[in-house]
């Protein structure tokens, strides 16, 4: 039954994705290998849409993944399963552990978790780059998509400029859409 599977997978993501919405990305990436709910290319579209619509990005991505897997009921199940672990944990912390984040053990654990979360997101992004910036030619051979790679590098370079760093993701997504239509990518 797909809903039980969605519940299991998204409850797990809710429990182990620590440090914000993008921490769910590596787990969503892993689901592409396990189920046929969405492809890696579709996951890239999901990120773009989740970043350019209202609401927390992590929730938006879970809703989208659930919708792709099993329609509106799937979206509801995935979203509620994602928030369920935190719902319990946060209320327990609120009741019993007032100085939770100042606790030495908690801080030591996060000293280790932070680099790992960055690494896991790095892994997911590398997977995205591999499918977004390559093309499969007629012989089934995968090659680098040079125009795409160049555009990506250029955009990344421009993002390093202080003013551009603060631009909203929506701006980049609109620029991407316009470039895509104009250049017929």
């Amino acid at each position, binding site marked *: 039954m797909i809903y039980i599977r969605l519940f299991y997978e998204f409850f797990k993501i809710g*429990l*182990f*994705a*620590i440090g*914000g919405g*993008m921490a769910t*990305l590596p787990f969503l990436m892993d689901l592409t290998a396990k189920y046929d709910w969405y492809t890696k290319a579709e996951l*890239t*579209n999901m*990120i*773009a*849409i989740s*970043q350019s*619509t*209202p*609401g*927390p*990005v992590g*929730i938006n991505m879970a809703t989208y993944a659930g*919708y792709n897997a099993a329609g509106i009921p799937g*979206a*509801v199940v995935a*979203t509620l399963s*994602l*928030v369920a*672990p*935190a*719902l319990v*944990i*946060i*209320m327990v*912390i*609120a009741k019993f552990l*007032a100085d*939770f*984040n100042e606790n030495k053990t*908690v801080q030591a*654990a996060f*000293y*280790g*978790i932070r*680099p790992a979360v*960055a*690494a*896991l997101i*790095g*892994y997911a992004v590398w997977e*995205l780059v591999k499918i977004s*910036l390559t093309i499969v030619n007629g012989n089934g051979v995968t090659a680098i998509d040079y125009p*795409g790679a160049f*555009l990506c590098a250029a*955009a*990344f370079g421009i*993002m390093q400029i202080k003013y551009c*760093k603060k631009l909203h*993701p*929506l701006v980049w997504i609109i620029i*991407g859409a316009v470039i*895509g*239509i104009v250049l017929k990518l």
Partner: protein
Amino acid sequence: MNIKNRKISGKILSELYVSFFKIGALTFGGGLAMLPMLKRELVDSKKWVTEEEILDMYAIGQCTPGIIAVNTATFVGFQEAGILGGVIATLGMVSPSLIIICLIASILKNFISLPAVQHALAGIRIMVCAMMLQTVVTMAQKGVKDKLGVFLFLAGFLIASFTPVPLALVVIASALTGMIAKKHEGGKQA
């Protein structure tokens, strides 16, 4: 942060739902991008919490599983109206996403085969790659502070990329490594 001693009425529950629905519907991006909106609604308008309390919640949200903005909703709801309040505030926060994303996903399904949409998505995917690379750089800058951080980053990346080890296990192992390293450090000082 104590739970306020007051009778939980339907009024406070509906106010919690509406307030967090509004925050979810009007903020883009999540995380820190939501702070100004949270402050306006929860501190200035409703006076449920102080600004310091919101910042505390963010600090806790960064050290707990889940989506930070949603965790803040759970926290405020619980504080105002107990377990039911926590649940209602959380549902309010996620409701707009459910509605908006389902709408967009169903619309996109009908238009995805159009050439213009395909070209636009191809361009968008390239920009998403650039933005996500930027995210990794920022997170690595914030999270990787010393040699152990570099080791955990590289080990995490290689394990996730080239082995079938579950990602959850990588998170748990890194937490334990952090705790052991800090304990060792403390032992040396003593």
